[in-house]
């Protein structure tokens, strides 16, 4: 076969791989087809890899096979062993690896080809791939360390931080200019690499633990863009297309998370709010709440016709999702209609709470997102809130001066009654008091989530 034909076939195969990726994501639109979607994506990856290995310039496979074997073993092991609660860290770490790979490819290209012959296009893409890959790599590693609590998750802020970032960015632009002028300059390239790595760290350290869902989504987007820039260097369509798909996915999830937290992206990146207590809305009059017991809760739940459960991250921290599932099942067996209302930021990353509940065998058709269920609260007898606070705070609807104002919340206050299991009256991440706790129709139970639910189960059995 002549070279032209081979090239055409290679391009066709890459196109097929891209189509498989597109179908894979399309099938994620329903939980019924999602698994086959994942297989389509795997198939796409397989086609892309095999096509690449058939590349005419690759003759010696020893090193490649060794790399694939090591990578597969590690990936397989981590993928099988990781706890579902640790999913955010894992996604952050893998994002970082993707960015690192893009960065390494750009560096390797410098040593493989003669940079003297590089056109403007090639040099530009090498710079981009190196820079975006570097930012993604260190940014993800910092996010991973924060989520894994290897370092403090609170924001690290220092004077002139923005100025420093600005200077570094200027250095990047200047070094890029120098590199485009002299494409053989290892010095300019090294400067670009280090600025990228440093910026990755500096951009993520000021972001607090509560804002991590936004950061993970954003880094997900970067890792896609890093892959696409590598595609620019190699003029490879499958890298560009799939990198763009991932980039878009990250952008959308970032938007959803920002909206759900009532923050703008600029505010998350430069605001450094997460974790710091806000002093607004601070009229602290002494108000009383009525303390109820688990037995009271059990008898109300037992006599209800409809119950909505609102889980927050406190549930996962207390590892109470399994007992909660058991309680839900008992109520369903008693003829009560039970559903779960999942706020977009209920977990530590987009959709996290759904995975945790699915793992505990809650059928997914009982898991409702905010738009699906919010109108139903007013017709619901009892809402059981566990480990959630800001996402049910009516101040988001009523108090114009509250930092929560405008945030989409679950309309727990519209239900006929509410049971809230919470350790104390302490405010949530936003540092705002919650009116709902003092409402007449609210029953507060001050307990750890797991202990509280366990006691409700015992009480339900005795009824």
């Amino acid at each position, binding site marked *: 076969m002549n070279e032209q034909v081979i090239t055409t076939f290679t391009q066709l195969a890459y196109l097929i791989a891209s189509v498989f990726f597109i179908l894979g994501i399309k099938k994620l639109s329903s939980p019924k087809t999602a698994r086959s979607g994942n297989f389509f994506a795997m198939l796409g990856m397989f086609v892309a890899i095999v096509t690449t290995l058939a590349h005419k310039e690759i003759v010696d496979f020893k090193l490649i096979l060794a790399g694939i074997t090591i990578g597969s073993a590690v990936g397989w092991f981590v993928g099988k062993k990781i706890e579902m609660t640790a*999913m955010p860290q894992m996604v952050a770490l*893998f994002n970082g690896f993707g960015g690192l790979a893009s960065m390494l490819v750009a560096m390797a290209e410098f040593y493989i080809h003669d940079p003297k012959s590089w056109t403007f296009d090639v040099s530009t893409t090498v710079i981009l791939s190196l820079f975006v890959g570097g930012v993604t790599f260190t940014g993800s590693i910092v996010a991973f360390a924060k989520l894994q609590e290897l370092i403090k998750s609170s924001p690290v802020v220092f004077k002139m931080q923005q100025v420093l970032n600005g200077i570094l960015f200027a250095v990047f632009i200047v070094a890029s200019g120098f590199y485009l002028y002299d494409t053989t300059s290892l010095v300019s390239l090294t400067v670009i690499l280090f600025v990228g790595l440093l910026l990755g760290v500096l951009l993520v350290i000021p972001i607090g633990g509560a804002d991590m869902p936004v950061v993970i989504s954003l880094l997900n987007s970067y890792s896609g863009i890093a892959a696409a820039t590598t595609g620019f260097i190699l003029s490879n369509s499958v890298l560009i297309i799939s990198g763009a798909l991932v980039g878009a996915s990250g952008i959308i999830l970032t938007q959803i998370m920002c909206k759900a937290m009532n923050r703008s992206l600029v505010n998350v990146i430069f605001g450094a709010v997460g974790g710091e207590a806000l002093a607004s809305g601070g009229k602290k009059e002494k108000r009383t709440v009525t303390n109820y017991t688990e037995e009271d809760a059990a008898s109300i739940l037992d006599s209800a016709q409809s119950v909505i459960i609102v889980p927050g991250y406190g549930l996962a921290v207390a590892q109470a999702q399994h007992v909660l599932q058991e309680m839900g099942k008992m109520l369903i067996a008693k003829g009560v209609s039970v559903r779960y209302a999942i706020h977009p930021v209920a977990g530590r990353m987009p959709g996290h709470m759904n995975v945790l509940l699915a793992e505990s065998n809650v059928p997914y058709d009982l898991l409702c997102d905010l738009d699906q269920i919010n109108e139903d609260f007013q017709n619901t007898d009892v809402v059981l809130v566990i480990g959630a606070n800001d996402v049910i705070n009516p101040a988001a609807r009523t108090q114009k001066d509250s930092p929560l104002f405008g945030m989409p919340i679950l309309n727990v206050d519209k239900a006929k009654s509410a049971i809230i299991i919470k350790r104390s009256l302490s405010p949530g991440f936003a540092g705002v008091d919650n009116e709902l706790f003092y409402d007449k129709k609210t029953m507060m139970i001050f307990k750890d989530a797991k202990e509280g639910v366990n006691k409700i189960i015992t009480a339900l059995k005795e009824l």
Partner: protein
Amino acid sequence: MDLITSVSIFVLSIFLGIELISKVPPLLHTPLMSGSNAISGITLVGSLIACGVAMETKDATLGAILGFLAVIFATINVVGGFVVTNRMLEMFKTKKK
């Protein structure tokens, strides 16, 4: 393929991605992230080319080492991402046993 063709494909794919992903329900956002994470491991293709070509190039030992490392990290990204996504999607069941 020149840079402008590449950029055109990139921009159009972003729009396609936005259309596709806005149809994914919040229920599946975590698997979407880990799955798309695995897909972004497509850099593996670039890593394979870099590693393979470096092996055939004179005086490119450093390039080969960098390519080799890239292959390892990209493969972890791909395999780990798909394995964990599959594990998660297996857990999503309806009431029927």
